[in-house]
C-alpha cells in the first residue's frame, strides 16, 4: 500500500487549493463574486488567485447578487463553468429569484433542453456575534428546492475534494461553507478523491445515531466523546450532502442503534432536522426504541450578546443532555 503525503493546513487553504486545481485543469472555470480578486476573498479563500490567473478568470463583481448570480447562470448556459461566490448566505437572499426560478427550474421548464452547470459557494452559520442579519443557516431551506444540489463540507478532505465533482455535475450545486470552519486545522492526505452523493460515518457507535453537518459536526463529535465517558457509545454521521439526502446511510445506522438525535444549526421549525426525522420515522419507525430527537437553534433572530448567542445555538451540553434522555 503506497503511503500518500500528508500535510497540515487550514480549511480555507484546502478550499483555495481546490479552486486553484479547478482553474488549472479546466479553462472554462472562472471565479466571480464580491471581493474575490483584489481583496483576496472576504475569508481569504481566494488570496493570490488573481495574481495567478488574472482578472478575466478571477472577477470582482459590483454589489449585485441578483445580477451576478443571474449572470453566472447565463454564463453556465453559454458554455462556461462559473464558480459564483456569494459572500454569505445572508446576502444570497437577494439572489433567490434567479436561483429558484431559473437555475433550479430551467432544465425541467425547457423539457430537458438546457442544463445549468453552475457552482455557487457561500459562507453560512453563526457564532461570531455578527447579529441577526449576518448569522443565518439557510442551507436547509435551499435543500427544499428540487433541481438544486446542496453540499456542506465539514472536513478538510471535503473542503479540498468536493469542488471538482461539483464542477463536473451538469446541474446547479450550492456549497455551504460554515464560517467557523475556515480556521479549522488538520492533516490532509494528498490526492484524496471524494464523492458528492453520500453521508459518512465519522465515528462508529452502537447506542445512538448522532446526525450533524457543517458547523455542528465538531460539536456532535465532542458530545460523543463526553457520552462515551458515560457509557453511551454514539455513532456520528456527517451528512455532507443535504440534497439529495443519503437515506441508506442514515437508516443503516438507526436500525443498528435504534436512537436518533439530529443536530442542526437551522431554526427548529421546518428544519432539515425535521426532514431527516420524518424520513427515518417513515422508514424505520419500528426499529426505534425512543422518539427521534433534535437539537436546533432557538426560534429567534440570532442576538449579538455573546451569552445570548451561545444560548441560541446548538451546543455540546445540550446535545449531551438530550442524548441522555433518549438513552436513559
Amino acid at each position, binding site marked *: 500500500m503506497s503511503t500518500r503525503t500528508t500535510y497540515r493546513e487550514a480549511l480555507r487553504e484546502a478550499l483555495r487549493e481546490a479552486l486553484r486545481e479547478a482553474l488549472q485543469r479546466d479553462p472554462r472555470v472562472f471565479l466571480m463574486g464580491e471581493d474575490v480578486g483584489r481583496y483576496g476573498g472576504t475569508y481569504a479563500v481566494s488570496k493570490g488567485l488573481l495574481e495567478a490567473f488574472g482578472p478575466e478568470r478571477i472577477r470582482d463583481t459590483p454589489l449585485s447578487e441578483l445580477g451576478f448570480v443571474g449572470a453566472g447562470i447565463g454564463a453556465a448556459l453559454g458554455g*462556461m463553468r462559473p464558480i459564483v461566490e456569494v459572500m454569505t448566505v445572508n446576502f444570497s437572499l437577494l439572489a433567490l429569484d434567479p436561483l429558484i426560478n431559473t437555475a433550479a427550474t430551467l432544465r425541467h421548464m425547457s423539457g430537458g433542453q438546457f442544463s445549468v452547470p453552475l457552482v455557487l459557494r457561500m459562507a453560512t452559520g453563526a457564532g461570531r456575534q455578527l447579529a441577526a442579519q449576518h448569522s443565518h443557516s439557510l442551507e436547509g431551506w435551499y435543500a427544499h428546492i428540487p433541481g438544486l444540489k446542496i453540499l456542506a463540507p465539514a472536513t478538510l478532505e471535503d473542503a479540498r475534494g468536493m469542488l471538482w465533482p461539483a464542477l463536473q455535475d451538469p446541474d446547479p450545486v450550492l456549497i455551504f461553507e460554515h464560517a467557523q470552519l475556515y480556521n479549522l486545522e488538520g492533516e490532509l492526505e494528498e490526492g484524496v478523491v471524494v464523492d458528492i452523493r453520500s453521508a459518512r460515518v465519522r465515528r462508529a457507535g452502537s447506542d445512538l445515531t448522532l446526525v450533524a453537518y457543517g458547523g455542528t459536526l465538531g460539536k456532535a463529535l465532542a458530545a460523543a466523546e463526553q457520552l462515551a465517558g458515560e457509557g453511551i457509545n454514539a455513532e456520528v454521521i456527517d451528512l455532507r450532502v443535504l440534497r439529495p439526502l443519503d437515506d441508506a446511510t442514515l437508516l443503516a445506522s438507526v436500525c443498528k442503534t435504534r436512537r436518533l438525535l439530529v443536530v442542526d444549526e437551522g431554526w427548529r421549525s421546518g428544519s432539515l432536522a425535521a426532514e431527516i426525522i420524518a424520513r427515518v420515522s417513515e422508514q424505520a419507525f419500528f426499529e426505534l426504541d425512543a422518539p427521534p430527537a433534535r437539537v436546533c437553534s432557538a426560534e429567534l433572530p440570532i442576538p449579538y450578546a455573546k451569552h445570548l448567542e451561545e444560548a441560541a445555538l446548538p451546543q455540546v451540553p445540550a446535545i449531551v443532555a438530550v442524548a441522555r434522555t433518549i438513552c436513559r
Partner: protein
Amino acid sequence: MSAPLPFPRELALRLLHDMVRIRRLEERAAELYGEGKIRGFLHLYIGEEAVAVGALHALAPDDAVVATYREHGHALIQGVSMQAIMAEMYGKQEGCSRGRGGSMHLFDAATRFFGGNAIVAGGLPLAVGLALAERMQGGSRIAACFFGEGAMAEGAFHEALNLAALWRLPVLFCCENNLYAMGTALEHSESQTDLCAKAASYKVPAQAVDGMDVVAVQQATAAAVQQVRGGGGPFFLEFKTYRFRAHSMFDPELYRDKAEVAKWKERGPIHNYSARLKALGLLDEAGFLALAADVDAEVEAAVAFAEAGSLEPVDDLLRDVHTPEGAS
C-alpha cells in the same frame, strides 16, 4: 411614406409575412384559449409584431435571444416551428418544452432561444451571462434581451445594465415599451419616464425607435447590433409600441380607455406596412391574399398537429429535474 425600402424585396416581403404569421398565431391562440384548449396564462403580442420581426431579422441566426412571457412571436421568428409552439400551449409532449412549460416557457436549444421567462426582468442577468460566456470564449455572437418597460423598475434591470456596461459585454437590451405594465401606466411607475436616459445613466448608448414601423425597427437594430458585435459594449433600444389586446386573457382593461386603443390601431404595424408595400408596388391585393392564405394554412396545420399530439406519460413525472448521468 413611399420612400424606397433599405433592403431587398425578398426581405421586405418576409417582414410582412412574419408579422402576419405572428398575428394569426396569436389570434388563433386566443380562440383556442376560449375553447379551453390552452390553459393557464396567455399573453398576446397583437399590435407589437413589428418589434420582434424587425429586431430578430437584424440579428445573426446564432445570436442568443432571451425573451419574456409574451414571447410566442419571438420564438416563432427565431425559428421555433409554429407546430412546436402550438403543441406546447396545448401541453403536449410534442411541444418545444415537452409540454412542461406552457405559453410562458417556450425554449429551443437548437435556435439559442433561451425562453420564455415569467419573472419580469428575470432574463436580463441571464443575457448578461450569455454575453459574458461568449466574450470569454472569444466568440462574436451577441445576446439580445427583450423585456417590457415595466422591467426597468426591477433591481435586476439596473444590476444587469451596470454589469454589462462595466465589463463591456455584447448585450443588446431591447425594451418593448407598450406603455402599460399589466394595469399600471408608465407615468405611475417611473419617476423618470425617459427610458433612454435611464440606460444612458449607466453609460450605455441608447436610442428610441418607432416600434410600430418594422422598417425603423430593423434599421435601428441592425446599426446597434453592428456596434455591439464590434466590441462597443452593450446597447439599449427603446421600441415604442402598443398592445391592442389586454395584458393577458382575463383582463377587463379597466386601466385604459378604448379611444386610446383605437388610435393606436390606426398605426397598426401590419396595416401600415402592407399599405406601404402596396404603394411601392411590391405587393398587390392578390399577393396579400395569397400570403394570408399561406399563413392560415400554417396556422391550421399547427392546430392539427397540436390536436393530434400526445400527453406525456405520468410515470415520467420526475424526469428532467436533474440531468441524467452521461447526458450533455
